[in-house]
């Protein structure tokens, strides 16, 4: 994979996107989902704040009520994360289907979710523990990096860091669904794929990041706040197509 093949893949991805506009329906769903979640979140916050206020009005601090709200918030966050995870998996499934020549269908979307969500979810939990461990160890080096390279490169250092992390850990769900592998195996494949093609993949994720940030502003301030999620998921979908094409090229070698 080099710059030329990347450009070819981006061209093919653009053609595929134009011919299968249904690929972007999940992005629209994501936007709607996000708005719903935001509203629900605000409602839950309002209820819990009002509730705690009433609970403490008589100087009898009602602990169980307070804990209840914590649990409610926890459940809320878990459900939301699961929904967005499912959405992401569904998009990956649709992308693989479209590249294989199938048509976009809700069946494909939900089938992929049904087949792989448990595997991916548990891998993510496992990975979370590893990541938390790594976070503790890497905390000081990362802070030093941010303060030195981050400031001295006027922010490019931060962009470089976040895109690099995505190069190594941002493709494994797609690989898992495509190859029907196990969770941690896919993460390993992701890392070797990333090591072999670091700079082109970095460019892919940089394009994803910058366009997802830039395009909403074209719609003005109001448009930006409403459409930002849709546009960012649109870019994610397009990026997944590019990544899949590049990964298949890499596998074929």
């Amino acid at each position, binding site marked *: 994979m080099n*710059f030329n093949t990347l450009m070819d893949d981006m061209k093919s991805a653009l053609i595929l996107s134009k011919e299968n506009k249904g690929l972007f329906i999940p992005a629209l769903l994501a936007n709607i989902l996000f708005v719903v979640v935001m509203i629900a979140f605000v409602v839950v916050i309002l209820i819990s704040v009002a509730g705690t206020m009433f609970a403490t009005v008589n100087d009898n601090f009602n602990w169980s009520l307070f804990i209840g709200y914590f649990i409610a918030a926890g459940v809320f966050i878990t459900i939301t994360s699961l929904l967005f995870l499912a959405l992401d998996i569904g998009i990956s499934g649709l992308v693989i289907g479209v590249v294989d020549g199938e048509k976009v269908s809700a069946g494909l979307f939900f089938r992929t979710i049904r087949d792989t969500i448990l595997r991916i979810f548990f891998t993510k939990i496992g990975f979370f523990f590893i990541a938390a461990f790594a976070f503790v160890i890497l905390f000081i080096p990362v802070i030093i990096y941010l303060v030195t390279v981050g400031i001295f490169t006027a922010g490019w250092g931060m962009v470089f860091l976040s895109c690099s992390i995505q190069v190594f850990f941002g493709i494994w769900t797609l690989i898992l669904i495509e190859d029907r592998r196990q969770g941690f195996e896919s993460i390993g494949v992701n890392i070797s794929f990333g090591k072999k093609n670091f700079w082109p993949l970095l460019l892919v994720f940089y394009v994803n990041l910058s366009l997802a940030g*830039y395009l909403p502003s074209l*719609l003005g301030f109001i*448009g930006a706040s409403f459409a930002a999620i849709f546009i960012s998921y649109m870019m994610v979908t397009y990026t997944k197509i590019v990544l899949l094409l590049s990964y298949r090229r890499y596998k074929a070698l």
Partner: protein
Amino acid sequence: MKGLKFTKTLMLFDYFKQTFELNKKNKQLYTPQVLFLFLKGGLLLLTFLSFLQVFDRISPLIGNDFSKVMTLLWNTFRGVPLIMTLTTLIVLLFGSTFVEAGLYHMYALLVQEKENHPSFMIGASKYFFPFLGGNILIFLFWVIALLPYLLVGLLTLSIGLFLIPIMVGILLITWKASLVVDDDGLFTALKNSINFGKMNFIPLGVFVVIKNALSSLNGSSGGGSSNFSNSYNNYNSFNDLPNGPNLSGWNNGIDPFLDGMRIVMIVLFSIISVTTILAGLIQMLFDIFFGLCSVVIYVDKFYIPDPDPIPEAMDINEIIEEEVAIDEL
């Protein structure tokens, strides 16, 4: 027409490929900018050093009569610092245009494969005044258009605020390319650029969006008219005064507060100077790539060969020959 717009947009990727190849083969494209960047850094450093001298001289007197301090400030300033500041200003304002002119000349020669090692100085001196004129004209245009632009921007719920610079950018993105490729003078170049922009609005629009999004970290507001902000980016380091090592030694008996101020200033300005150079280097990568790409696009002009050439009408003799041949079978 719709199909053509998409096909032309797809051609952008081929242009990117071509630009990347040209970039890789011709590393000498980078030398002028890098040299200029370090020249800028060095000049700003010297300017700040001279300002530091001024600061040193007046700081013991800060507590005293203000007007006296001001006169002393002006007198000290009139010597070396003034020369330094003026030199820096001139170099910054004209230097970036000079570098740009030379670079675009190199792009044109490389893309049209006229020379493998184009000279920087020839292009820089030949095209310096047209480039300068163009930059000034565009700058004036934005100054004059600022109020109407803001008005329209607000009326369209801020959509216009971002779209109008992009639309202007599309029309103007190839004026520099046209200047060095067509070699016909500034006003023809501007006219050609506007026509080219009008004919290939959507593909160039995608190009401008990609260029703006990738070239700046805060793409949203920095994404203004491509050519104005392009030259502005070359000027932006002017506002940051870096610092260098303190050569004049510590003055004894200065207020500890002023000591602290000094240290803060030194630290701040060294960070700013390093940042300017590093960020400038990264910015340079994008500027050279997209500048070269605009020349590539302008030279190729989105050429799509005829899919089904109409067969030429056959000569009557050929038809008779054919019929004779069939009869003989």
